[in-house]
C-alpha cells in the first residue's frame, strides 16, 4: 500500500472496481475503507481546497459509501483531522529516527525531511503544510502541535549534546513553522520544491549558528522595551458608525467601507467559517442585495478586508523603515513599529494573522504572497553582505515566514501584547543572515541600550 494518501485513494478505487467485497473480516474491510477515505480527503483537498470539499467528493474518490463514511468519521472535519494526524505521525517518526542518529544536526534534519516531503509528494505536502491551516481551528491546533513536537525533538537533541556544539540560535518550533509556510507558499505557486532547496535552507540556518552555551535567542526571552511611537501619519481603518449617508456614486464606496468594517468585526468575534453574508450585511446596516452589489461572495469581502489590513500593516512598517538611515536601523524600526501596531490593534492582528488564512487555494496563495511582501525590507541587506554566501530567495522567504510564525504563535495564544518584547529576536532573524550573528547581536544590544536611556 502506498504511503502517499493521494496514491492510496487511487489504488483503493482500482481495487474496489476490481471486485466486490475483497477478502478478510469486516473489521479489516472497514479499516481499508478508512484508509481510502483518509487518502481521498487529502486528494480532494489538494485538488479543490478544503473549503470546497464535500462529503460526496470524498466518498466518490474513495469508492466508499456515505454510510461507510459515517461508520468511520463523524464529519468532514473529523476525517480531515485524522488524515492530518496520520501524515504528521509519519513525518515525525522519520524525523525522530534521524535525529536520534545525528542529534547535532537536529534542526537541519527537520528541514531536510520537510523539503524531502514537499518534493516527493507535493500534493500531500501542500495539504499538510498549507491547506491544513485553512481547515478550521482544530486543524490549526493539530498543525501547531505537530510543529511543536518537531521543535521539542530538536530541543531534546540539543539537551543531549555537549554545550559547545554549534547550533542555530533560533526557536526550533518557530523555525519549523516558518519553513513549513515557506514550502507551502512555493507549492501553492506551483514552484517545485526541489531537493536543492534543502541545501539552501541549511545554509540559511547556518547563519544563526553559535555554540549551544552561547544561545540567547532560542528561548525567546522577553526583552522589556518602551513601546514604539507610531507617527502622526497613520490613519486607522474607518469605523462604520461614523459614516453618514453619502450621495450618488459615493454610496457604493461607503457601502464597501462599511461592509469591510463589518467583516472585520465579525471575523474577530466569530471567525471566517462561521460568518455569513446575511450577518455581514446586518452588521453593516445594509441589505444582502447591497452586499452583493459590492462583493460576489463572503470570500471576496474577506479578501478585500485582508488586502486593506495588509496595506495598513505594510504602511506602518514602511513608514518606520524609511524614517531611518542605515539598513539595520531600518529593520529595527520597522520591527518595532510592526509589533507596536499589532499590539494596539489586536483585532486586526487576529484577523490578518489567523482568519486571513481561509478560502480557496487562490486566496491562500495571495495570503502567502503578502507575507512574502515583507522580504522587500530584506533586499537592502545584500549591500551589507558581511557573510561569504548571501541568502538565496528561499532563505529570504523563510526569514519572512519565520517572523510571521513567531507573531502568529503569540497572537493565537492571546499574547499579542508581548510582541514588542520579542522584537530583538525577530530582528535577529532578519539581520543575522546578512550581518552574521555576532554583529547582529552587537547592533541589537546597542539599540536596546539607547532605548534604556
Amino acid at each position, binding site marked *: 500500500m502506498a504511503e502517499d494518501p493521494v496514491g492510496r485513494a487511487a489504488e483503493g478505487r482500482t481495487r474496489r472496481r476490481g471486485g466486490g467485497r475483497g477478502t478478510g473480516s469486516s473489521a479489516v474491510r472497514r479499516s481499508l475503507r478508512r484508509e481510502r477515505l483518509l487518502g481521498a480527503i487529502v486528494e480532494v483537498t489538494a485538488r479543490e481546497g478544503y473549503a470546497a470539499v464535500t462529503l460526496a467528493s470524498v466518498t466518490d474518490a474513495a469508492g466508499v459509501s456515505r454510510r461507510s463514511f459515517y461508520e468511520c468519521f463523524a464529519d468532514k472535519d473529523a476525517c480531515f483531522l485524522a488524515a492530518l494526524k496520520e501524515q504528521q505521525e509519519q513525518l515525525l517518526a522519520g524525523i525522530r529516527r534521524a535525529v536520534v542518529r545525528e542529534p547535532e544536526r537536529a534542526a537541519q534534519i527537520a528541514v531536510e525531511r520537510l523539503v524531502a516531503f514537499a518534493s516527493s509528494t507535493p500534493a500531500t505536502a501542500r495539504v499538510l503544510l498549507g491547506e491544513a491551516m485553512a481547515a478550521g481551528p482544530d486543524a490549526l491546533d493539530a498543525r501547531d502541535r505537530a510543529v511543536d513536537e518537531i521543535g521539542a525533538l530538536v530541543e531534546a537533541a540539543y539537551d543531549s549534546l555537549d554545550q559547545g556544539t554549534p547550533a542555530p540560535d533560533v526557536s526550533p518550533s518557530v523555525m519549523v513553522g516558518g519553513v513549513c509556510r515557506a514550502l507551502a507558499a512555493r507549492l501553492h505557486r506551483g514552484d517545485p520544491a526541489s531537493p536543492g532547496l534543502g541545501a539552501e535552507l541549511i545554509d540559511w540556518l547556518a547563519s544563526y549558528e553559535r555554540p549551544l552555551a552561547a544561545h540567547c535567542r532560542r528561548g525567546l526571552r522577553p526583552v522589556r522595551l518602551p513601546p514604539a511611537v507610531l507617527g*502622526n*501619519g*497613520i*490613519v486607522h481603518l474607518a469605523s462604520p458608525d461614523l459614516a453618514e449617508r453619502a450621495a450618488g456614486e459615493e454610496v457604493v464606496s461607503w457601502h*464597501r467601507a462599511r461592509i469591510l468594517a463589518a467583516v472585520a468585526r465579525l471575523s474577530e468575534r466569530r471567525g471566517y467559517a462561521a460568518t455569513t453574508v446575511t450577518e455581514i450585511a446586518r452588521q453593516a446596516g445594509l441589505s444582502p442585495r447591497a452586499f452583493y452589489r459590492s462583493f460576489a461572495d463572503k470570500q471576496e469581502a474577506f479578501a478585500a478586508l485582508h488586502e486593506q489590513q495588509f496595506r495598513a500593516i505594510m*504602511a506602518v512598517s514602511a513608514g518606520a523603515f*524609511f*524614517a531611518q538611515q542605515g539598513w539595520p536601523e531600518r529593520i529595527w524600526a520597522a520591527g518595532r513599529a510592526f509589533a507596536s501596531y499589532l499590539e494596539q490593534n489586536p483585532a486586526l492582528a487576529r484577523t490578518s494573522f489567523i482568519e486571513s488564512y481561509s478560502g480557496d487555494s487562490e486566496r491562500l496563495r495571495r495570503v502567502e504572497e503578502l507575507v512574502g511582501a515583507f522580504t*522587500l525590507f530584506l533586499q537592502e541587506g545584500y549591500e551589507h553582505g558581511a557573510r561569504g554566501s548571501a541568502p538565496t530567495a528561499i532563505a529570504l522567504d523563510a526569514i519572512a515566514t519565520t517572523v510571521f510564525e513567531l507573531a502568529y504563535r503569540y497572537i493565537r495564544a492571546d499574547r499579542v501584547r508581548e510582541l514588542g518584547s520579542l522584537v530583538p529576536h525577530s530582528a535577529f532573524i532578519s539581520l543575522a543572515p546578512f550581518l552574521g550573528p555576532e554583529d547582529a547581536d552587537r547592533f541589537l544590544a546597542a539599540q536596546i541600550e539607547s532605548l534604556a536611556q
Partner: protein
Amino acid sequence: MARRSVHPNPTRTAPGKGSKSTQRERILTGMITAANRDGYAGASVSAVIAEAGVSRPTFYDYFADRDACFLAMIAEVHGRLLALLRPAVEAEAPEHALQACLRVLVDFAASEPAQARFLMNESLAGGTSALAARDGSIMEIAQLVEDRYAELKPAKAVPDFSARMLIGGVYRLLAVRTRRGDPRVSSLVEDLLGWVAAYERPLKKGRWRSLQPLAPLAPSPFLPEVPLRAPPPLPPGRPRISAAEVAENHRRRVLFAAALLAEQKGYTASTVADICKLAGIDARAFYAMFADKQDAFMAVHELGFQDLMAVTAGAFFAGSSWPERSWEGARAFTQFLEANPTIAHVGFVEAHAVGPGAVQRVEDSHGAFTIFLQEGLQYAKPDPPPSRPTMEAIITTIFEIVYSQARTGAELQLSGLVPHMTFLTLAPFLGAEPADAVIDELLAGRSGK
C-alpha cells in the same frame, strides 16, 4: 541687519569671482545664499538684503518683490548653465548630445554647488511660477538635445527615452546631492553615462522617447476600496462615540483639509486658520494634535507616502518574477495616484515646499522606492550591476514623470505610461531589447489581469 550701501557703484563690471559686482548681482547672490540656507520661504526680502548688503529701497529698484527676484535668479543660473551646455553639445557628435548635457550638469553641480542647488532644489519650493521656470529650464536643455538628434540618420543610436524626463530626473538627483553638500558629486558622471547607455537603440527603432501614453491598463485588483477622503463631520450630540474616535475623526479631517489646501492654494499660502476652517474644527483642537502647519502637512505627506508604498508593495508581490512585479507595482502605483490626485499633488508637486527641516523626510520617501529595484540585482545579476546612483536616477525620473503630469492640473493619465516606466526600470538590468520583449509579453498577456 541691513548695511546701508555707502558707495553706490555705477560701473557695471563683468561678473566673476572676486570682482566687484553690481548691486543687482549682489542681490541675486544674496537670494541664492538665503534660499539655500532657509529655503524659499526663508528667503524674504529682509534676508536677501542682509546677505547682499543693500538697502530695502535699493532692492525694490531692481525687483518688484521677492518672487520676482527669485525667478530672476532662476533665469540667471539657467542662462549660465545654458552657456556651458551649448558649446558642449555642439562639440560632441549629435548622438551623444544627451551625454554631453549630463556631463555639464554634473560638472556644474560640482563646481558651482550653490547655484546648482538653487536651480535644481530650491526652485521646487518656490510655488507655481518657480516650478514653471525650473521646468522651462529643463525643457530648453532637452530641446538642445532634440535639435541635435534631428540632424541624425535614423540608424544612429540614442537613449530611447524622453530627454526632458531624463534631464528632470537628473535635476532631482543633483538636487539631493547639492542640498546635502555631497563632495563626491563629480563621480556621478560615470554612473549616469552608464545609466543612459542602457536605453540606447537606433532612432528609427525608438519606442519610448515620445512618452506617448498607451491605452490605460485594466484596473489593478490591488487598489484600495475607497479613495482616501475626509470623513464627514460627526453628527451632533454624539452619545456612543468614544473620545478616541472623536480625536481620530478630527485628525483625519485636519489631514485631508491640509492636503486639499496644499493642492488648491499651495502649502506656502495656506495657514492653520485655513486648515481649521476647512476641517471644521477649532484651533485648540488643531494644536492639540499638531505643532504647526508643517507638522500637519508632513503628516499628510507621510500618510500619502505610506499608502502609496503599501499599495505598490501589495501589487508588486502579485507578480511571479521581478519584471512582472515591477509591472504590477507600477500599475497599482500609477492607478492609485490617478484615483487620489490630491495625494499625487501633495507628494510630488507641493512636497518640497514644506521647508528645509522636513525636506529630508520628503527626499527619503522618494528614495524609498528604489527598494522595488533591489530584487533586480538578484534576478538579473547584470554585469556590471546598476549602481546605487543609477537606481536612484530611475526612480527620480519616474517621479519627474508623475510630477509633470500632476502639474498640468488636468486629470492624471499615468497608467498609460506604465510600459515606459517599466522600460526605464528594466533596461539597465536586462538590456533594452530583453526589456522590450518582457513588456510586449506583459502587454499582450496580462494587461487584463
